[in-house]
């Protein structure tokens, strides 16, 4: 059973709001970079980058991160069934104000893996986390700095973040 949480219109304005919040929290003198996690985080990152360009005319470097190698639950089954996609971070993170973007933040394990991965790409000035949905239920002490929507759902419900680039439409749904 699907329930709409954010409509396409609200989705778009959430991204806009996050983009503005980011620009208010950075020092425009220093380089800025944005890295999206796995598939959906990458598209979100690209949109945020494009919004930021629009807002304050900064060209943002966008990186793509596959965290599979750093997962703490990497089993033989996962290795053999899930194709690891290519990580592409065509810049050094050294000295950069780095924004990490993902679609849903729940346990925090994915972000923990992303952090372990990113340390190999240079020491950033700082790293902030932007997510479309924060649904609580942390298992690791991770906090999002920029959030599209805070949700409190029980375990039976799952979140679906839809993106035009993949699903043809934008939106956030809960499914049980």
């Amino acid at each position, binding site marked *: 059973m699907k329930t709409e949480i954010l409509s396409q219109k609200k989705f778009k304005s959430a991204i806009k709001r996050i983009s503005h919040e980011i620009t208010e929290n950075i020092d425009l003198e220093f380089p800025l970079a944005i890295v999206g996690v796995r598939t959906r985080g990458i598209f979100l990152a690209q949109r945020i980058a494009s919004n930021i360009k629009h807002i304050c005319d900064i060209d943002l470097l966008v990186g793509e991160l596959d965290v599979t*190698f750093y997962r703490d639950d990497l089993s033989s089954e996962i290795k*053999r069934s899930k*194709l690891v996609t*290519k990580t592409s971070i065509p810049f050094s993170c050294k000295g950069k104000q780095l924004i990490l973007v993902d679609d849903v933040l729940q346990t925090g394990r994915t972000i923990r893996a992303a952090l372990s991965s990113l340390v190999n790409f240079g020491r950033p000035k700082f790293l902030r986390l932007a997510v479309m949905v924060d649904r609580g239920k942390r298992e690791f002490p991770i906090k999002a700095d920029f959030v599209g929507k805070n949700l409190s759902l029980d375990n039976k419900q799952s979140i679906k973040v839809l993106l035009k680039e993949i699903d043809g439409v934008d939106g956030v749904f809960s499914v049980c």
Partner: protein
Amino acid sequence: MITKNFAKKDLLSISDLSSEEIIFLLNQTDSFREVNERDIKKVPTLRGKTVVNLFFEASTRTRASFEIAGKRLSADVINLSSTSSSSRKGETLRDTARNIEAMATDVLVVRHPSSGAPEYLGRELSCAVINAGDGCHEHPTQALLDLYTIREHKKEFKDLNVSIVGDIAHSRVARSDIAGLLKLGANVTVCGPSTMIPAKAECLGARVTTNLDDAIRDADVLITLRIQLERGGGLAFPSAREYANTFGINEDRLANANSDLLIMHPGPINRGIEMSPNVADGPFSVILEQVEYGVACRMSILYLLSG
């Protein structure tokens, strides 16, 4: 994006793999190539895993390639070499293997002068076994990196013309390459002197010719094999000079070749025998890329088989 399962415990031969499994491995290799391009060439996926390179036959480059691959995945890599002469009595293959397993090895990479030895070990051991070359039978990781190299340049295998030149009868690289290329839809021609073409060669699935010009004409890829004249008691071919004159790849022989011909060699090259130095270093050659991709391919395989 193909995400079929890779179901096998061991990697013993290309003949055992389905075309989907081969493509999965090739796709996976892209990610590891990226790791090799980073400043810090390390990912933690095989941390705490033990990879043993057990080489019964001398080899610097394949072993080094596996060692680098394992270390970049954060594995503990041990190199063991062992002589295996047919007259030597002593520890049986099974005993050697059992000892290694007792040390809680996760992956065993084996190169052996006898066809079938890695398959035997795969049956006996519960850890994963990777065939790094067995006798004249197969060299699956070489074939995978050859296929990856070809794909980088040619994109598609369907109807691609690939010629393999050299001592086909004694070549494990040839057998693995032929199997992989045929599975992916390429047309394969093998070429060499009659004394180096195996009995019933048609059963391998490739077109057979003893005429080098015939093999080069229309070829999109040319894989040259290393000639070891000491094999077959030296009777397979009268001399290195005669081989170079009839089957050596040089600029003259390539005069009518396709302008985008790829030239490959599993290495090490006998410069001046199977290939002239100009060709080895020339514009068609992708031999150094093969070595580069070899590490990424082997990382891909270690990653998948390490449990």
